[in-house]
């Protein structure tokens, strides 16, 4: 380090706000990052971590506030400016180009940034191979020509993750952001990564490390920053905090949140029985019984297999092992149509791409699941009945719209979600699978969705709630299943359980 003012922070984030429709994701975050230090960014899902990373890496502009990089002020950054300033990001989705070679994925980005994004020039392939080889060796990957010319789409996920890390350190990075870089790595690979981080720190590189795995954070050491509801709630050396303190900081000392699930509701006989369900390497040996009128929560970290399980129960990506029985009779769920026929409704996590026809009207979206039963005697859609049904759903679910003919995309996230739930109510479901029903939904809408959920369970519908929102699970469920690495690792009664306890269980079972 030959800079005169070493004490000057490498990067400062000052008073940054970011709002999305209905959600205030960052509320005046101010942070300073010193050179050669490792920072752990902790917080629950939806606390604003991802948004903060996107603003630093230039993927999104802040609404208010500024970034100061080595004394230079920026009201916003483009991705290229961020890269040119020495900020490299390992994204959660890895952001690798599947159709290009390992060497190109590792080396081209820094090549691009070094020349200000200029495309009208040739590039030195040997220099590219050398850069790539150095970075690949640093993360413990092979660096021979054969591996370098392999297309990324042919690599297994763990190797891709390491390639993404190699890309981040291929250039003269000053600030490396790693967004959950260890989700699919083995312990040996994680140990290797920690060694890489230590070397980087010794070279004066600042690392911002985002992970849910607290044990890893302690092993790496450094400073910890905790975000909650878009605000910084703590910062200091990680060694000064206990795990319990950190999970309390992340979840917040919430004023004993009222459970929506009030008394021990009358739970009936088994409606859905799952035995030894599995799909490839995504999840296996999953067994549980869902009773009539029961709300069963399923949670786990991103790589736990909970998402895949949800999709299997909906017939979207069917299981290849085990059995599913509905009301005592075995059923096959090979397609979403099978699920629908057996009156299993599925509200997917990504309502925009998987669930809704955004540019179609609310009415069309509501009636689409039961369109075949709305035929008149000429086989045509009975518009009057469709209209009445849609209007009733809109009223029942308190969807805020002046007109059911408006396109769904004109609604807020919470209202869109209610349309999606309403669609399945129209088929009078036995089982409803809700996958992250309140992701990206504001507080008021959450409340309404929870009330709807309780109302449905009182009607005898069995509900599987797959979510990583711990308060949501505690407030709504009878039981919570915990998944880790594709297996069910624990079952908890929701009543009386505290959020901190549930979070600790989540982290320890994931480790």
């Amino acid at each position: 380090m030959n800079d005169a003012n070493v004490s000057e922070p490498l990067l400062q984030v000052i008073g940054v706000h970011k709002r999305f429709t209905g959600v205030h994701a960052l509320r005046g975050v101010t942070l300073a990052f010193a050179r050669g230090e490792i920072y752990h960014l902790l917080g629950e899902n939806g606390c604003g971590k991802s948004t903060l990373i996107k603003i630093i890496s230039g993927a999104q502009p802040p609404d208010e506030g500024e970034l100061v990089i080595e004394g230079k002020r920026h009201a916003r950054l483009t991705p290229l400016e961020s890269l040119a300033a020495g900020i490299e990001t390992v994204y959660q989705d890895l952001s690798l180009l599947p159709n290009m070679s390992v060497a190109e994925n590792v080396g081209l980005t820094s090549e691009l940034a070094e020349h200000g994004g200029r495309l009208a020039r040739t590039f030195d392939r040997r220099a590219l191979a050398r850069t790539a080889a150095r970075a690949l060796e640093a993360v413990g990957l092979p660096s021979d020509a054969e591996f370098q010319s392999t297309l990324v789409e042919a690599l297994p996920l763990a190797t891709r993750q390491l390639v993404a890390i190699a890309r981040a350190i291929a250039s003269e990075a000053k600030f490396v952001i790693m967004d959950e870089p260890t989700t699919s790595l083995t312990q040996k690979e994680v140990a290797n990564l920690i060694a890489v981080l230590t070397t980087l720190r010794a070279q004066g590189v600042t690392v911002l490390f985002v992970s849910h795995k607290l044990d890893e954070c302690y092993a790496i050491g450094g400073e910890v920053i905790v975000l909650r509801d878009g605000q910084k709630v703590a910062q200091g050396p990680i060694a000064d905090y206990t795990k319990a303190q950190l999970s309390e900081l992340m979840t917040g000392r919430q004023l004993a949140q009222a459970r929506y699930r009030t008394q021990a509701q009358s739970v009936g006989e088994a409606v859905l029985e799952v035995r030894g369900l599995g799909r490839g390497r995504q999840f296996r040996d999953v067994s549980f019984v869902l009773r009539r009128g029961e709300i069963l929560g399923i949670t786990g970290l991103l790589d736990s297999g909970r998402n895949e399980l949800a999709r299997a129960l909906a017939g979207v990506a069917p299981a290849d092992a085990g059995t599913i029985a509905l009301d005592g009779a075995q059923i096959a769920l090979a397609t979403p149509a099978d699920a629908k026929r057996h009156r299993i409704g599925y509200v997917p996590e990504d309502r925009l791409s998987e669930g809704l026809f955004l540019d179609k009207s609310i009415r069309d979206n509501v009636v689409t699941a039961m369109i075949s039963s709305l035929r008149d005697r000429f086989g045509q859609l009975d518009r009057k009945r469709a209209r009445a049904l849609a209007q009733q759903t809109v009223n029942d679910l308190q969807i805020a719209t002046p007109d059911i003919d408006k396109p769904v995309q004109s609604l807020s996230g919470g209202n869109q979600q209610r349309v999606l739930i309403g669609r399945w109510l129209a088929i009078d479901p036995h089982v409803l699978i809700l996958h992250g029903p309140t992701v990206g939904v504001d507080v008021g809408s959450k409340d309404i969705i929870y009330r709807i959920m309780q109302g449905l369970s009182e009607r005898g519908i069995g509900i599987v709630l797959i979510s990583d929102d711990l308060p949501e699970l505690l407030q709504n469920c009878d039981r919570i299943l915990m998944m880790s690495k594709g297996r069910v690792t624990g079952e908890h009664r929701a009543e009386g359980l505290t959020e901190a306890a549930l979070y600790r269980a989540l982290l320890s079972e994931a480790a």
Partner: protein
Amino acid sequence: MNQTMSSTDTVDVAARRRPPDWRAKLARRPEWLPGGLIVLSCIVVATLNPRFLQWATLFDLLHSATTTSLFALGTLVVLASGGIDVSFTAIGALTMYSITKAVFAWWPDAPFWLILVVGAVGGVVLGLINGLLVHRLKAPSLIVTIGTQYLYRGLLLTFVGTTFFMNIPHSMDRFGRIPLLAYRTVDGLDAVLPVSVLALVAAAVLTWWLLNRTMMGRAVYAMGGSLPIAERLGYNLRAVHLFVFGYTGLLAGVAGILHVSNNRLANPFDLVGSELDVIAAVILGGARITGGSGTVLGTLLGVALVTLVDNTLILVGVPSTWQKVIVGAFILVAGVLFALRRRG
């Protein structure tokens, strides 16, 4: 960054050490498919009619493949970038007809190189309009270029002319007759390899160099791999869009001029309608319709295969209406094999 970690062992990447099966081979080198089909077709035709095996056949093939190849190389670049262009034939038709007509009316003695340059510039301008529209409107390139195909063609037929003429400018006519190679066949016919074949070679080399040796070429594949990721990594998508469609326009403009001088005829109804043939040839050459892949060699082989089928069936006494059937069958075979290569 100079760290080397002697202590770290190499991570096991078992998946790639498996001996590759035919699917993996086909995924890496899709050129094998059109290459194999070409060899197969040649063997069949040569067995049925030994006269196929003479230089004159090759000359004929190269002659008729020139225009298609230029179009196909442009299409390759657009497909690699994740887009599609169906307006290039209209660009070729508009430039060739209006330039030929203008030159003939006002400066019949214009040198050929100048006509070629004007054709190229005209093509670039029309292509850039495509690129700008695709980028600005963030609209699917198929829709945009269907629109501009109609637009360019409509402008041509409404404002420039609808009658073909065979009195083309002198220099164009002469260029079409210059032989690169010529000899007299055993049947006493003159077999001529026209000099315009050099344009094919030049375009192939230039396209290969642009795609494989420049940052722009890498950016084309990056955008074809994933547009949002390329944007996040700092690629200037506007520049890539303009380059991709501008370059396709350039090749189309040049192809139009060569088409006139090779056929000694300027017909405003030519070219448009052959887009699908060109796209089919590029797909046969291994480019994925979803973008991010495709090679110059594969594209040239794809064009060669289609041209071969088009031109040699007559040699073995098969009615020319069978051309479409055979090309269609090849495309289905290619489609199935290329779809299978992704699974494994």
